[in-house]
């Protein structure tokens, strides 16, 4: 019972080998074992989207996965997007268009939007709202988030 598992996970380009308990959530692995606290944990049962990370390039809820399920896979967290000196263009647009207030939902929303904008560089407002329908924001009313995405899309295509 409760054998510990050895996992090898690539996070933001760096490879980590850790021994984990089977019940350890991917979100807790990122936050506690690796110290990457940019991944936020909100509802912890797959509703709010705050814990969204990229799993092999696609958004998933890290509170609904075990760390062992990430064995051999590539994870991107918000720490992998930009640096304090050089923000990712999407982060830049969120700052400029006031796409956040308290910021709790922002990492999850950014990571949801990154592959979305790669697939769809010029999305309509409806497509943006559909894309973030799995992420809750209790501050902005979403309007400034939509504005930020449109600003980012505009800048990329310019």
């Amino acid at each position, binding site marked *: *019972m*409760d*054998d510990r*598992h050895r996992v090898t996970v690539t996070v933001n380009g760096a490879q980590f080998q850790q021994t984990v*308990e*089977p*019940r350890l959530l991917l979100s807790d692995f990122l936050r506690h074992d690796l110290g990457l606290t940019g991944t936020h944990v909100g509802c*912890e*049962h*797959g*509703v709010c*989207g705050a814990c*969204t990370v990229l*799993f092999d390039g*696609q*958004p*998933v*809820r890290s509170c*609904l*996965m*075990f760390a*062992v*399920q990430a064995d051999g896979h590539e994870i991107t967290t918000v720490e992998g997007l930009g640096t304090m000196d050089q923000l990712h263009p999407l982060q830049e647009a969120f700052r400029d268009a006031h796409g956040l207030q308290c910021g709790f939902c922002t990492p999850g929303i950014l990571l*949801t939007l990154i*592959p*979305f904008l790669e*697939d*769809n560089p010029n999305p309509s407002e*409806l497509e943006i709202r*559909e*894309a973030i*329908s*799995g*992420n809750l924001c209790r501050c902005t009313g979403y309007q400034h988030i939509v504005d930020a995405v449109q600003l980012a899309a505009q800048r990329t295509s310019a």
Partner: protein
Amino acid sequence: MNKFDILEPRTVSEAVEMLQRHGSAARPLAGGTDLMVAIKLKHLQPRYLINLKCVPDLDGISLHGGGLLIGALTRVADVATSDLVRRQYPMLASAAGELGSVQVRNVATVGGNLCNASPSADTVPALIALGAEARIVGPAGERFVQVESLFCGPGQTTLSQGEVLTHLRLPAPEPGSGGCYLKRGTRKSMDCAVVGVAAWLMSSQPGSVCGDVRIVLGAVAPTPLRAVQAEGSLQGQAMNETLWNQAGMLAASESRPIDDVRGTAAYRREMLRVLVPRAIEKAWSAALAGGWSGLPAGTLVKAK
């Protein structure tokens, strides 16, 4: 969360053997998006999770005798966005695109959506309406059953101890057939269906008469439900709106909904009276258009 171990079978027979050995102490783990919530809420307290993702070849979508073979571990996102599915069975692609959020579709599996046996599961009415068959492997070998007969109650399947759902087989699309899945939720996305309706039908020669038809209702009975009286009222008839409305009334009367947090039984029946005719109309125009052209607009999120 209770303590458990995760076991990693490398073959289907190893998974079957593990499930048999540990009996009710074990649960199969696929995407885990439903299972993990149940474990967190302590609705389930398994001692072993059998991680089916360790078994190769249980995911992917391929052509099979004119139809499609879908591995049970295929992610819902892949079903929603697969060109093969969208071309041949747009109803299934749009139903898969209605499930949860993009983050859930990227992890949840189509086999998991079936085996979780929620009466409101989005992919199930479409699969039943399309005549999908499930391949199940257990201690006694493999067997094939209609997806329709997989369910016996909320959260309950007809799989026995040690059995694993490995694949779904979709029959070759019939020329002149069309389908449509409509979902009514409390919000536009990211919620369980309050009512789901899948309609599939064929136009018979000379064209205005309905041939084979399947109407499947979600979230209005303990299991996904074939509306057999509604089907019977259409078969062999010249199609018109009065007939579709009548089919909606029949479907409402043969449904067995309950009141719950998402809606009342009366509301669900009322929605069947609206959605069943609407789904029939859309399926019928797809059938008359020769097949599988019209994807319901705006239902697909790119989740490549």
